[in-house]
């Protein structure tokens, strides 16, 4: 949000046709297109998606980098021949991205700068620049194609230097003095007079083996088999060099662009294929439930990371596990989690609602808060600083009872619950709790409740409530909601 209210950050082609533009205020955009569909700007989400796509691009080359906000850089040096040349690779990439529903613009050139420039400012969606014609290809493009983020473009434009061609071969000192070294650096980078490297998105694996499948794999067993066939050569490679790895990952490339990576870590350096197959195999097996091959996997890559020369080393003096690094509780959770699945272990967290049965929630341990709940404090807070006490557990469902009580808001003097009559000797209340009215139709809003803490002749203590108020002619009914110990 900047002054003038919300602004448009990105548009699709249909919006462009109605005149909606980037940087317009939302109000203006709505005036142009009253039925405009707006999503909140989510740069983190965009970046996450770009990152995902970037991982997918590793299929073309391991050297891939995100170029925010909307680009991906792929170093295809030495990789394009695998696809049958630069043009084939670009076409393949373009076709696959189109299949995902993405409008891509692709530039191929000998420098990052030139490729960026033609992809963003070229005339065609796919532009391939011959190495010898880099300067010529750049000449006609505007200065902004140089990736200069200062106001240099505007200032250059004002003196009539409007395209890159106007800068090529011109005296450099006056330009640098006026528009910054950055301009010259970017120009040189685009032309290849100065080096520029990309920092790859994922740490490059030290070793990797892969297999591609013209006929996509669908069955888990096939993948398991593939894992074994990849692990053997990888282990052999490591063993030959005398290296072991601490981290391994199996990347599964689905036809529709989804990439799934299964990573394992080991405490010690590993070079045995059996270990790799077993650890990753477990992960594969664990996938069973949410295994979704879609239309199948077309490429599977096994990577080894953090490799070092293997030297034999004593790990520790005794066999005592976990010396204080992890609490026993966490270890218990880990053990149960591995066995039962983490989603199947729940714990209660407080939820700020006046309605008793809504004031706690059961959530998975994986969503557990770092600091444990101070339950007495929460209960205190819930009852405005006078913790009167509520049953620790409520009945699964309030159970109807019949009660005799003074109108309008007296405590019952006796009541029948599960066919047993109870005579009340002590009562406290009512605690009046009005319904949560929001988000539901008036007829779905239940009446107000009056809760009483009750003790009967036999010393049993109950938590009961009356649903509905006499003064609002709501035909009150009584319910048992919980028992005190």
């Amino acid at each position, binding site marked *: 949000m900047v002054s003038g209210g919300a602004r448009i950050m990105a548009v699709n082609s249909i919006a462009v046709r109605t005149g909606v533009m980037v940087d317009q205020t939302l109000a203006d955009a709505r005036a142009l297109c009253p039925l405009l569909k*707006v999503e909140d700007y989510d740069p983190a989400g965009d970046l996450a998606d770009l990152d995902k796509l970037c991982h997918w691009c590793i299929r073309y080359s391991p050297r891939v980098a995100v170029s925010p906000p909307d680009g991906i850089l792929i170093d295809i040096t030495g990789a394009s021949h695998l696809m049958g040349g630069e043009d084939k690779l670009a076409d393949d990439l373009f076709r696959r991205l189109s299949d995902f529903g993405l409008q891509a613009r692709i530039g191929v050139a000998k420098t990052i700068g030139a490729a960026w420039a033609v992809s963003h400012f070229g005339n065609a969606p796919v532009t391939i620049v011959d190495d010898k014609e880099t300067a010529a290809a750049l000449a006609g493009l505007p200065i902004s194609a140089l990736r200069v983020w200062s106001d240099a473009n505007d200032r250059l434009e004002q003196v009539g230097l409007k395209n890159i061609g106007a800068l090529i071969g011109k005296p450099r000192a006056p*330009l640098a003095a006026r528009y910054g070294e950055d301009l010259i650096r970017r120009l040189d980078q685009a032309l290849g007079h100065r080096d520029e490297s990309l920092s790859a998105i994922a740490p490059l694996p030290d070793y990797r083996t892969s297999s591609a499948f013209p006929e996509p794999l669908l069955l888990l067993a096939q993948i398991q088999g593939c894992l074994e066939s990849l692990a053997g050569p990888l282990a052999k490679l490591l063993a030959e060099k005398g290296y072991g790895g601490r981290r391994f990952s199996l990347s599964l490339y689905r036809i529709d662009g989804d990439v799934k990576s299964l990573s394992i870590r080991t405490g010690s350096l590993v070079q045995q294929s059996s270990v790799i197959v077993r650890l990753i195999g477990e992960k594969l097996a664990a996938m069973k439930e949410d295994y979704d091959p879609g239309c199948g996997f077309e490429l599977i890559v096994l990577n080894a990371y953090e490799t070092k020369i293997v030297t034999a080393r004593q790990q520790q003096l005794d066999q005592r596990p976990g010396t204080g690094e992890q609490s026993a509780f966490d270890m218990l959770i880990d053990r149960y989690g591995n066995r039962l699945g983490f989603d199947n272990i729940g714990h209660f967290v407080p939820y700020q609602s006046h309605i008793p049965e809504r004031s706690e929630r059961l959530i998975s341990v994986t969503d557990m808060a770092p600091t444990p709940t101070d339950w007495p404090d929460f209960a205190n807070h819930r009852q405005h600083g*006078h913790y009167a006490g509520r049953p620790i557990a409520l009945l699964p469902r309030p159970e109807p009872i019949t009660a005799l009580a003074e109108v309008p808001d007296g405590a019952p003097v006796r009541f029948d619950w599960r066919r047993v009559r109870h005579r009340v000797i002590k009562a406290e209340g009512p605690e*009046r709790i009005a319904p949560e009215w929001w988000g539901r139709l008036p007829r779905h809003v239940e009446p107000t409740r009056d809760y009483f803490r009750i003790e009967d002749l036999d010393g049993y203590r109950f938590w009961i409530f009356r649903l509905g108020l006499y003064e609002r002619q709501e035909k009150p009914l009584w319910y048992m909601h919980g028992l005190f110990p």
Partner: protein
Amino acid sequence: MVYARTVPVTAYVELAVTSNFSFLRGASHPEELVRTAALLGHGAAAIADRNSVAGVVRAHVAAKQAGIKLVVGARLVFADGFEAVCLPENRAAYGQLSQLLTTGNLRAPKGACDLRLADLRELSAGHIFIAMPPPDPTAEFSGTMEWLAGAFPARTYLGATRLYRGNDETHLENLADLSARLDIPLVATNDVHYHTPGRRPLQDILTCVRHHRTIFNAGFLLHANAERHLKEPGEMARLFRGHDDALTRTADIAARCHFSLDELAYEYPDEPSGQSATPQRELERLTWLGAKRRFPGGLPEKLKRTIKHELALIEEMTYAPYFLTVSDIVRYARSVGILCQGRGSAANSAVCYCLGITSVDPTRIDLLFERFVSAERDEPPDIDVDFEHERREEVIQYIYRKYGRHRAGLAATVITYRSRSAVREVGKAMGLSLDLLGTLSGAVRGRSFREFNADQLRELGLDPTDPTLTQTLKLVRQLMGFPRHLSQHVGGFVITRGPLDSVIPIANAAMPDRTFIEWDKNDLDALGILKIDVLSLGMLTCIRKAFGLIERHYGTSYDLATVPREDARVYDMICRADTVGVFQIESRAQMSMLPRLRPRTFYDLVIEVALVRPGPIQGDMVHPYLKRRQGLEKVDFPSEALRDVLGKTLGIPLFQEQAMKIAIVAAGFSPGEADQLRRAMATFKRTGQIGDFRERFINGMLSNGYALDFAEKCFRQIEGFSDYGFPESHAASFALLSYVSSWLKCFHPDAFACALLNSQPMGFYSASSIVRDLRDHGGIVLPVDINFSQWDHILEARKNSGTCALRLGFRQVKGVRKDDASALLDARADGFDSIRDLYFRAGISTRCMERLARADAFCSLGLDRRDALWAVQGLGAPTGIRDSLEDLPLYANAMAHGIEDLQREEEMSLPAMPLGEHVIEDYATLKLSLKAHPVSLLRNHLTARNFVAAADLACQTPGKLVSIAGLVLVRQRPGTASGVIFATLEDETGIANVIIWPKVFEANRKTVLAARFLSVKGILQIEQTVIHVIARDLTDLSDQLAHPGDLSDPGVGRTETARVAAVLPKGRNFQ
């Protein structure tokens, strides 16, 4: 207690009442609370808002209507969290409470109040305190209680509530123990936050807004139940069974608090009566003195009688000091050369004219002094004075100096939730998405909130059965009209004899050194407190500046009263609608009316100003008047009585006074009732309450023998006035400024344009249009130049010519600040001979120099825009920030190689700048171009395609299909024209008006709203001299401007087009 247990149930008064003036806490209006208390049979009503008495006047008025006593108070919330309701027993105690709140307010930023317990030591008169304990009373609380009871024995109580928290019994027993231990009696309250339990959802939403939460995650911030409403005394008695004395005490306390706001008998400050015995004598002396000055040739007998009549009435009402105050303020303004003029009903007074408060000669319009001051309507007169907008602050500071901040204060304006803000706040709290919020607030845009029916919701793409949506809409309706915060009134001053803060609490405003009182205009009116409106008006600034320029360059001096009157040449100009920049009659609607109404006298102008306004347009008065004026319709009157009323406006009611008089003469209203009708008219738009007047009005007219359709028509016209009707006197004051500005434009167009530009932003037209207009009238306009320009625009004498040229000033250059310009001017002396000279002598930043270069301000050095830019850019680091000299790249270079190296930079050949680009750059930096009009660059092209220039439209055949093209100056969609859009296009020859019907607009939405350069094909309509093109096809030509003839640079890409479009004026949208 003797009478416990036999108490009648009616003996209960709810004392802890929070209204919606405890912002974002209370969920009911003070009026609702008071009325409900009366209905429930409470012995009295009370209001005690959080550190504020902002809502008490409304409660006071409502209590009078409901016939119930009001206990005025405030709930004091101290910095340490301690809360106590404070109820003053008498006037003195109220004064001290008000001072206490002032102390707290002034300690805190706007909207907050920082009270400390120690402040209570200042209180000495009769206050009653009811301490409000927290849900779980702490030791700290009982400590404070004890201290309070020690400081205010027999006046301190402990508030007890039964809010159904589950432990009410125990809680009450604990409090009873505490009460017994400290010997502080218990008082029953319900800590009321709303008048009925039905307001709980709204109260929940207010809590969410206060905490910036949504209702879904507000959790325990919300109250658990809906019990904090006003309850019947019987119910309270049941709840507090066993504590009956706590109940009866409420009535005792209410009985003790006999303070009423009526007691704030307003004491007007003593004005020094100068050489006279009394203020009245002084006023008379000054009036006759002024009369002599106003009428040097002798006072007309009729006027003498009027003045005597007015003075007698003023004496009877003892308003003389008030007149002296205003007269003194005006005298001060004059003494320091600030132009001012009274507006509104004060212009009805000959005394005001003689005192110099107003400028409309009373011999030229009919005065209705009773509209201003009347013995029957016992309410204070309201003198509104306009001052120059740039110098009003000086007047305000004078008032503060003269009366002291402790005696003078600005009134508040209660900012209320309007439809859009209510939608936004409720929507956010209900967790609506940004998208949905946008849709909803778009649907309520610019108009009052309508009840959406299911179909309308579906049309907006919303689901009418969605509970969240329907709840949101319901809550929005409830929230609308709720006070949101207090803000300072634009200029309503209250002045008192004693300390102001003992009448009304004073609070800090957002502006530094500004304070305002907690009550607004209506509150002050209701209590009969006088106020003076010190308003600001841009045109006065312009006129004063024009007078100054004329005196300096042409040697004659004028003021508002001495500008030659009734000059036919001025009216000729007005009849031509040649009124760009003229006050009030410069809008499109006014301009299209001028050639038809053809004003020839001052009174014609008065009518013009009053006629072309939304009120009369909605009341359908314009066309009947026009027809009668043109002699196309007979002027007749339904009765002789009405002839007197409507004679001068040809039988059509145009002014508020006439509406009132019709009510009196034809419908049998008393003058007092007619005034109520006027007030109802003024607030009709807001409240929609005019209904019962309608029946009385129409029945009254029928019984006086008028026809039903005529009666209904009259009432419709009165309704049409609503917010927009002018009183005649006000129209006259404005018309005078219209005349004076027209006169300036007619005889000193150079000075007028210069003054207008120096007073920007104001008025209807952009600097570009003003400059164009001046040049069209033969004026010379010179560009901004580092060697000739000042900060302001100035006039330069021209040799062999009686007129001056207008030199544009640095203030027109985008991004150049006043201190930069002053630095440049201080160093200029005989001028700069080079860019380096400017750089080293003036010491301004390279960024600023770059802006000047972009504005092409180096021409006197022989450098055009591009050369100058290149040179300036070479001076500094790319950041444009001025480094120390040695760090400058060129200078550093020169240090190494000798100073001559500065000149020896490698040559760089820059492409020459085409004219089109110059024009675009001019617009980008100056918002106007003296070189060419952008459209002229395309003229050949347009002519080839049979486009007609704006100036040539008049020679075309009406009814013909024509094509025009121009920059969009304004798009308007007046509320009075049912969706029709009026657009004004400008080309190099002039201005063309385009009418776009809603259907055509919907089909061309994007083009109409987004185009900066628009082409329109449509039917030409010429009515007398008013020309319109009724649009059929519309095309956005903005991108054409990027490539006009000589701009076909192959390097121009899409960025260029976007830039050109961005630089051109966007056109003002519907206001």
